[in-house]
């Protein structure tokens, strides 16, 4: 399913003294099967932007096209449920939304709301639990007896069990330890690769964006500052640094080598393996 935002503006608390402009003039497209990373500082409008992706909020100007549906300002929308089934959002700290008595019930909650029969939902729950790397034994436990990391995985499983076509992730690994981080990010990537899941990742981590995404959108002060493939984005690392954003460690090493040794690289390296090869190539060229 394709999602497109056209000239989207959103103001919080319109017509009150607290009114504030969160995003403006946002134009982006999310094509089926792509992996888009949205990057920006806190307060750059990332979270507001992603709530538009399944019509949780309506733009105050402009329009959002989600598959066949168009969400516009000033129009009452009914029957948003189908949209929400197709576009699943995993919010920041999703473990805060757990509430059922058992893990199984909680994972089934979403699917059952969307009219999936109970039995089918239970099968999905088992599958989702396996995907997030948890054992079936915890299905009967209370979600509140789990550790923080396990709760996070259960909450994510709840979203996966809905089997959305587009998965939107708002900093899904915030507050996890490095290993858990990698496991979860790899799991999402596998889902994207194997099932062609359209994925939108909101993140602070340039490493993650560089490693997984086909397209990066940089948000700055409520609007799109730059968008492109990771290669395009990271070939001008200075621009990112001017905004106070990080670049991946590999690109930083390249920059340093360029500055101190005067070596020239043809393209930005987005993985350690790639960097090693590049360095080797440059050294061989230099020694010849």
């Amino acid at each position, binding site marked *: 399913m394709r999602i497109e935002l056209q000239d989207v503006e959103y103001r*919080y*608390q319109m*017509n*009150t*003294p*607290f009114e504030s402009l969160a995003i403006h003039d946002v134009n982006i497209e999310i094509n089926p099967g792509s992996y888009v990373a949205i990057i920006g500082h806190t307060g750059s409008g990332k979270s507001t932007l992603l*709530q538009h992706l*399944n019509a*949780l909020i309506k733009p105050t100007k402009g329009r959002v096209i989600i598959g066949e549906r168009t969400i516009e300002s000033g129009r009452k929308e*009914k029957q948003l*449920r189908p949209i*929400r*089934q197709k576009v*699943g*959002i995993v*919010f920041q700290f*999703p473990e*805060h*939304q*757990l*509430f059922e008595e058992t893990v199984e019930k909680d994972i089934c*909650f*979403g699917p059952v*709301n*969307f009219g999936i029969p109970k039995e089918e939902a239970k099968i999905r729950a088992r599958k989702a639990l396996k995907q997030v790397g948890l054992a079936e034994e915890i299905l009967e436990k209370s979600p*509140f007896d789990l550790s923080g990391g396990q709760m996070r995985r259960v909450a994510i499983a*709840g*979203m996966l069990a*809905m089997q959305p076509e587009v998965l939107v992730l708002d900093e899904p690994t915030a507050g996890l330890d490095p290993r858990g981080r990698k496991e979860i990010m790899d799991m999402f990537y596998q889902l994207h690769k194997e099932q062609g899941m359209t994925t939108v990742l909101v993140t602070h981590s340039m490493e993650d964006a560089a490693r997984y995404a086909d397209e990066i959108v940089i948000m700055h002060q409520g609007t799109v500052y730059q968008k492109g493939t990771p290669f395009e984005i990271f070939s001008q690392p200075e621009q990112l640094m001017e905004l106070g954003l990080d670049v991946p460690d590999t690109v930083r090493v390249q920059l340093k080598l360029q500055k101190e040794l005067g070596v020239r690289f043809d393209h930005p390296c987005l993985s350690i393996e790639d960097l090693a090869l590049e360095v080797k190539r440059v050294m061989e060229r230099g020694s010849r």
Partner: protein
Amino acid sequence: MLDKMIFGRYVPLDSLVHRMDPRSKLLLVFFFVCIVFLANNLITYGILAVFTLALIALSKIPARFLFNGLKPILFLILFTLLLHILFTKEGDVIYDFGFIEIYEGGLRQGLYISFRFTLLILVTSLLTLTTSPISITDGLEQLLGPLKKWKMPVHELALMMSISLRFIPTLMEETEKIMKAQTARGVDFTSGPIKERVKSIVPLLVPLFVSSFKRAEELAIAMEARGYRGGEGRTKYRQLSWHAVDTLLLCTLAVLTILLLLFRSY
């Protein structure tokens, strides 16, 4: 919807009402709440309305914002009105539906009481809108200070109040966040049959309770870590100062009371 809730919120502006001493504002609201009950005819309600509108104008709070804030409690006001119309049997019958009779006295009573209700809410909202929670608590603590002699835990009460006021917006935010998360999981909070909507409260309330308890515990630990030991011998960074305006305003209130007593029908 939650955006519109104004109760317990502070709008930082610079106005006469904002600059007033919280103590005088608290006294004002307290006495206003008492004298509202003196009004019992058009003139007296008119006087109260003028006074309230003047206060709103002085506070520089946009009137539209304030009245929008009344919307969530409109239901309560209308309900009071309806109850009075239906069940107060006073004066002449003005309309007879056969199974139900509407009395002139009932209609009047209903209108007056809902108006009284509106005034009370406006004035009390004005207090929280123009006074930061911290000032309110400081003011309250000082006003109740004399009660310490009778072992009243004034400081603790004030602290409790300031904590609750402080966390109203936080709780609102949290509610909205969880509502959004559950909406994404297919809960419909705004439409559908009543039974479904009541059921949809559970996925909202459970996470809210859990996080509130967690937050309370964290707050307690943070306070202890910073050496909080109650109000004994605690000094204040913010000093309250009583100005001429404050005295003036309380005098206006006295005049208002006299006017109400004069024009009140017996």
